[in-house]
């Protein structure tokens, strides 16, 4: 396969790629100059809409459509919040954009604000990215000095301020309404929707929340046009009039048991196996893959036989995964115990559940307790049923929680146990030969330490 010519990552290997002078020398801020000189805000909305760009943060909602949900002729203020709380295990593509090409991101933010008539943008940046913080702040400072930010940008009527807002190491702040609560200075408990942020978001004003990679795509779409964007990727399903397709380049993250971990730009729709073999140099140590996470841990698992699944917005869902998510592929080689994998996943979600909704708070905590029990050689076959019962009943899909964190906790449980059931049963029987068939309830309150 011919390697795809990178667009979003075209500049990252240049010396001083994070500086304004290097960015301008490769055509940087040309899209912004074009938009301010030749396009009305609605024209920018239209080009993004007709590109069918879908949000890169995980949910894949069409970006242009999201923008049109803002109320018409609102007196303002309208806020733009950029979700840079990239915390999904396995995911680091936003970090690379912010560290190595922050101006591409900022140009996209300015264009998105121009389109939506937002005069203030907040970048909600996770705590764990100190270099992104430094690079973004330096880039913002350069933009103010060069007239790309502030009052009357490039002599136009358009004004914009961008502020960095640093998080405090909480995964839930990547959920867009958790992010807004955190921004406003409260605990990051996601909000019940509706109202959606476009109607009532930050500070109860209309707000757009977009991801870092999404706004980088906006820069390229304004530069190159919607037709260019739609020449890459997977077209809409002709049998489904509501399918917006999977267009454009995508930054895939590849990590785990792989020879060349890294962030690779490829057209949406390459298969997981292509990514592993053609970009990642194959599974490490000459081993075989046993499974792979398709898009961050909350998306579940592909088995080895499912690795030919195309990594577009529709692909992973067809084999029982939650979706494409962040397109972060984590490879598990043949030596990995699925019990260990699921323990790691359950421990993550137990730690990161915000505690607002009981099914998620209790479901994630008790699933970890059960995995601890299984790993301690006290597992029972019935635990698998209990884990699946939790997996099937927590989340916004079964309708029991406010946000999707619980769906993300549930999917690894459901996929691991349903796709690797024999391995779980064998582990439990081997490590607990006398008690694996036990079905009596285990006293729960003794475990909580509360009584």
């Amino acid at each position, binding site marked *: 396969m011919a390697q795809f010519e990178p667009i979003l990552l075209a500049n990252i290997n240049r010396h001083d790629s994070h500086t304004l002078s290097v960015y301008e020398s490769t055509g940087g801020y040309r899209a912004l100059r074009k938009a301010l000189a030749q396009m009305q805000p609605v024209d920018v909305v239209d080009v993004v809409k007709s590109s069918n760009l879908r949000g890169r943060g995980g949910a894949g909602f069409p970006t242009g459509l999201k923008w049109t949900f803002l109320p018409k002729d609102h007196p303002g203020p309208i806020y733009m919040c950029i979700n840079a709380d990239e915390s999904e295990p396995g995911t680091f593509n936003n970090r690379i954009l912010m560290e190595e090409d922050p101006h591409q991101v900022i140009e996209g933010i300015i264009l998105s604000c121009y389109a939506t008539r937002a005069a203030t943008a907040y970048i909600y940046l996770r705590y764990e990215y100190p270099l992104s913080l430094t690079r973004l702040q330096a880039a913002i400072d350069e933009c103010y000095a060069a007239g790309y930010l502030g009052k009357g940008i490039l002599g136009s009527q358009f004004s914009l301020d961008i502020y960095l807002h640093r998080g*405090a*190491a909480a995964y839930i702040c990547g959920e867009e309404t958790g992010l807004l609560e955190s921004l406003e200075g*409260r*605990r990051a408990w996601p909000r019940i929707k509706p109202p959606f942020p476009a109607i009532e978001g930050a500070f109860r004003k209309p707000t757009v929340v977009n991801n870092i990679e999404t706004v980088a795509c906006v820069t390229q779409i304004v530069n190159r046009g919607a037709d260019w964007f739609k020449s890459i990727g997977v077209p809409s399903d002709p049998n489904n009039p509501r399918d917006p397709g999977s267009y454009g380049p995508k930054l895939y993250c590849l990590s785990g*048991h792989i020879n060349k971990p890294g962030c690779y730009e490829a057209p949406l729709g390459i298969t997981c196996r292509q990514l592993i073999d053609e970009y990642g140099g194959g599974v490490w140590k000459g081993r075989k893959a046993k499974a792979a996470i398709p898009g961050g841990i909350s998306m579940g698992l592909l088995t080895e036989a499912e690795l030919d699944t195309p990594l577009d917005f529709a692909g992973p869902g067809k084999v029982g995964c939650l979706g494409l998510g962040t397109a972060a592929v984590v490879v598990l080689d043949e030596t990995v115990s699925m019990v260990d994998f699921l323990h790691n996943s359950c421990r993550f979600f137990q730690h990161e559940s915000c505690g607002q909704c009981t099914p998620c708070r209790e479901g994630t905590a008790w699933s970890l307790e059960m995995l601890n029990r299984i790993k301690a050689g006290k597992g029972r076959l019935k635990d698998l049923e209990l884990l699946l019962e939790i997996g099937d009943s927590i989340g916004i899909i079964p309708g029991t929680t406010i946000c999707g964190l619980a769906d993300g906790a549930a999917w690894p449980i459901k996929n691991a146990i349903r796709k690797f059931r024999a391995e779980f049963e064998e582990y439990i029987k081997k490590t607990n030969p006398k008690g694996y068939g036990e079905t009596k309830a285990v006293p729960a309150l003794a475990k909580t330490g509360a009584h």
Partner: protein
Amino acid sequence: MVEAIKALFSRYPTRQAVTLPALHIVNERLRYVPIGAIVEIARLLELAPAQVQDTLSFYGFFKQDEPHGRTRAWVCRSISCALRGGEEVLSHMCHTLGVKPGETTADGRVTLEFAECLGACDFAPCMLAGDTLHKNLTPETADQALRSFK
């Protein structure tokens, strides 16, 4: 610190939005956020101290009893790092330092923490110590990193 906090007021339409930035300002200077600082932040932001404390307590990030060590080292335990030996690096560091995650060495030099995904999975297993990312760690290189902490 008061001036640094006040300088942020114009960025937000409400004072409460300055809560997290204010906590970071205090934490960067004191390495913890004592209850006295909560009261002071609340006064500046025209909030009840309980509102500031409520937000702080959500994150589990800010220490309140005593300052963290001169270096706070976050060792990732999430899936990409765990697959490449992250948990072994963390337990090795616990052994070397004689502390459990969340604890500070007796000399106040290092606070060791586990982290959930540092977003540097291309360099797994990894550790964020202060503002420095330590990449592709082994128990040996983790020891070297520990010796470099002031």
